[in-house]
């Protein structure tokens, strides 16, 4: 029987290794897997590379993980969201490495990893500082920058509903990076507000098919992200 449910948050994040590349879903405070991030903090893995669109705000979840000093490098598009105080302090002190990636390139690099592709050529960033040192190729008269796939060892995802096969649906714009990150990591861990019987999710509207998911933990009352 295929059953991806795990009983506790500790079980959900068990085995995440030091040095792991961790994809963390969410945009601003929407879709952030708060409880999984705190479970990762408790689990203790260090020397992490975190991939997330923003750099957390306030003092909880992603900001709390950064504050532990266990994140060596952040790969993101926009670490300047208001309230990103923890990241700003670490950055100013030279205690964290930043790789800045245009948002669509960030997303597509993860999609490429999930899709088994060796990279892609994008018009985004041509002629800018963020394309420095990268291969540029003219295709049908237009210049494109070559970008490489970005694969995660782990993805942390927040879903609205899941079943035991790991099929997922999301809520509103909390979906954001989650479907792409789910397919781009070796170990995709999901916290779901509700876990439903197999067959209860409409096959026509499942957003993330369970093949991309490894573990599902039930978190019925997820906390808001970015709290003081």
């Amino acid at each position, binding site marked *: 029987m295929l059953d991806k449910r795990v009983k506790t948050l500790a079980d959900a994040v068990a085995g995440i290794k030091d040095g792991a590349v961790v994809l963390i879903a969410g945009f601003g*405070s929407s879709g952030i897997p708060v409880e999984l991030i705190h479970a990762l903090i408790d689990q203790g893995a260090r020397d992490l590379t975190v991939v997330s669109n923003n750099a957390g705000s306030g003092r909880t979840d992603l900001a709390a993980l950064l504050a532990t000093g266990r994140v060596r490098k952040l790969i993101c598009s926009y670490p300047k969201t208001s309230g990103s105080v923890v990241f700003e302090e670490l950055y100013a002190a030279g205690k964290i490495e*930043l790789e800045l990636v245009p948002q669509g390139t960030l*997303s597509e690099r993860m999609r490429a990893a999930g899709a088994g592709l060796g990279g892609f050529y994008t018009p*985004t960033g041509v002629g800018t500082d963020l394309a420095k040192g990268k291969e540029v190729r003219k295709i049908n008269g237009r210049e494109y920058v070559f970008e490489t796939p970005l694969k995660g060892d782990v993805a942390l995802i927040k879903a609205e509903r899941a079943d035991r096969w790991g099929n997922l649906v999301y*809520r*509103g*714009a909390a*979906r954001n990076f989650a479907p792409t990150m789910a397919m781009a990591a070796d170990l995709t861990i999901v916290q779901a507000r509700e876990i439903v019987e197999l067959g209860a999710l409409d096959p026509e509207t499942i957003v993330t098919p369970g093949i991309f998911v490894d573990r599902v933990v039930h978190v019925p009352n997820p906390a808001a992200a970015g709290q003081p």
Partner: protein
Amino acid sequence: MTTALSRTQIARRAAQDIPDGAYVNLGIGLPTLVANFVPKDREVIYHSENGILGMGPAPAPGTEDPDLINASKQYVTLLPGASIFHHTDAFVMMRGGHLDLALLGAFEVSRAGDLANWATLDDKTPPGVGGAMDLAAGAKAVWVLMDHTTKDGRPRIVEHCTYPLTARGVVKRIYTSLAVIDVTPDGLFVREMAPGLSFDDLQARTGAPLRLANDWRPIAID
């Protein structure tokens, strides 16, 4: 005497030119004001990079939903016909040339339509690019809304951008506090000027050569 346009008036002026039925992305800051001024008889479909098409106005107090936000992380609503999709598809729409229009703020625009709107020259704070480069590279047309000069009077329309570039040669039209200017292969054409402003005054506050369109007119300010 010249009447420079306020930020609200710049937004109102640009809103008049958005065509009925257009798919539009409004950048952070001044461009977000534009949605308030689109004529009521036009249906404009707003896109947000975090996966929404068909964004409606801000919700009534007390009905905010933390899972319905725009790219500026402000609460929004969904109009009938709205759709939700994931980030990669949101950027397929942007990068793939599916959006009719992107209205963006800027630090500088060059004579050739180069756009600088993502990074300042301050290296103490961390840089942030977000979706700016994807939007600039991918929308069918990019319009810029900005003050004509900096606070200390330096031109923002320049021969070559001094700020880090967002994209090269993408800006098609510029709405400023003093003028509406088209960026064309033949140069910068002034379509409209603020009431009371002379062409020489405008040129003096602009860092690249301007040409006055034959059919230019004063900007209509309500």
